[in-house]
């Protein structure tokens, strides 16, 4: 039986990809950020997950305004890094896990989530930057990936409660897949940042850390945080944190924190990073 063994939360700032691609990860600016991921890189090497369900948002890359799915799951065999305006990142293609992805897609629809199935798309920094943070610069990514794209651009984005609930449903779906697979789920995006308007540059260390606190342990209070609170407290793009709730929902009733890191700033953004494991309860 497949099982979700851990959850990872992480920012996915495009500048981190630039730092990796240009070999600047140890300089004064980026050093403190990448050092926070060193523990996780070693841990991933030990864990050797077979599959990562990678919750991210497309930043006007694969989806333009012609079609805007709320929840889209990648059921394809392979995804290429997208050209976001300066050429594609020089990272390996991402290999899918079509068997598990289709199983999850089918299970979620029966479970009354209104999924959009995707078979072909290019993936942007939202997906490739976390890969670089966790796995560095291999010739080939050491895991298969199920891209799980959430609309957090056009309003309304899905409620926190709906995100948490679909995480719970993903857990049920993974546990009903017969093959023995070590599956992780990553929630990416955030933390506080605002990329637009005169209020740009807003960061909120205190709120971000309260949010990370809320994902550890057995409280599900975070699923009820309204959108307006993310926006007021953490900037317009802080709303990306709803994607962490999908990861948290998929870990079950209670979690334990294995690693935690927070740094301000990277470009316009607060970098947060959290590694959780499910606590098995009775």
């Amino acid at each position, binding site marked *: 039986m497949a099982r979700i063994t851990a959850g990872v939360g992480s920012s996915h700032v495009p500048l981190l990809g630039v730092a990796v691609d240009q070999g600047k990860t140890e300089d004064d600016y980026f050093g403190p950020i990448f050092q926070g991921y060193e523990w996780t890189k070693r841990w991933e090497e030990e864990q050797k997950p077979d599959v990562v369900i990678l919750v991210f948002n497309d930043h006007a890359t694969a989806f333009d305004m012609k079609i805007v799915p709320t929840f889209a799951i990648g059921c394809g065999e392979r995804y290429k890094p997208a050209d976001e305006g300066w*050429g594609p990142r020089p990272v390996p293609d991402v290999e899918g896990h079509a068997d598990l992805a289709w199983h999850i897609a089918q299970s979620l629809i029966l479970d009354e989530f209104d999924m959009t199935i995707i078979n072909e798309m290019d993936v942007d920094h939202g997906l490739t930057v976390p890969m670089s943070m966790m796995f560095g610069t291999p010739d080939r990514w050491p895991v298969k990936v199920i891209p799980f794209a959430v609309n957090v651009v056009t*309003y309304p984005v899905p409620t926190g409660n709906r995100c948490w609930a679909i995480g719970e449903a993903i857990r049920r779906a993974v546990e009903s897949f017969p093959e023995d697979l070590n599956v992780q789920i990553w929630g990416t995006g955030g933390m506080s940042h*605002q990329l637009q*308007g*005169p209020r740009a*540059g807003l960061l909120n260390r205190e*709120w971000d850390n309260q949010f990370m606190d809320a994902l550890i342990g057995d409280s599900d209070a*975070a699923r009820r945080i309204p959108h307006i609170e993310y926006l007021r407290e953490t900037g317009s*793009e802080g709303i990306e944190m709803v994607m962490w709730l999908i990861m948290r929902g998929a870990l079950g009733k209670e979690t334990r924190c294995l690693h935690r890191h927070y740094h301000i*700033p990277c470009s316009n953004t607060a970098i947060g990073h959290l590694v959780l494991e499910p606590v098995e309860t009775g």
Partner: protein
Amino acid sequence: MTSDAGPTPDIHEYLAQLEDIPGTRIYTAARARRGYHINQFAMSLMTEDNRARFRADERAYLDEWPIDEAAKQALLRRDYNALLDLGGNIYFLSKLFSTDGISFAEAVSTMTDMSFPEYRDMMLRGGRSALGNRSIKGGY
């Protein structure tokens, strides 16, 4: 965190709240509809061919799109605050500043009242505080 907020507000109340944030344009349906072709134009800059054609003659490239004159002028001026008011979305517009070869932080700084070095310094000092920046009506 207001961890036990009540039930989801109705859509009218929800949308009204989104307009109550200082210096911020949330990308609602109203903006998405208004800025539709601005954003679709920006998406077109995701191939090197189109970027080269745009760089060679920005005006001619823009004239291929059903975008009104005010928006074309704002695009030519790279006036991102004006473009937000016209329904542009920053993730779409990022294809334009990537085409220009400037960083996300520099492009973002042009929407504030700071120079890029001032903006960068603010970020290094911990960023803009939420204090007083949360609500127009509430002033908190």
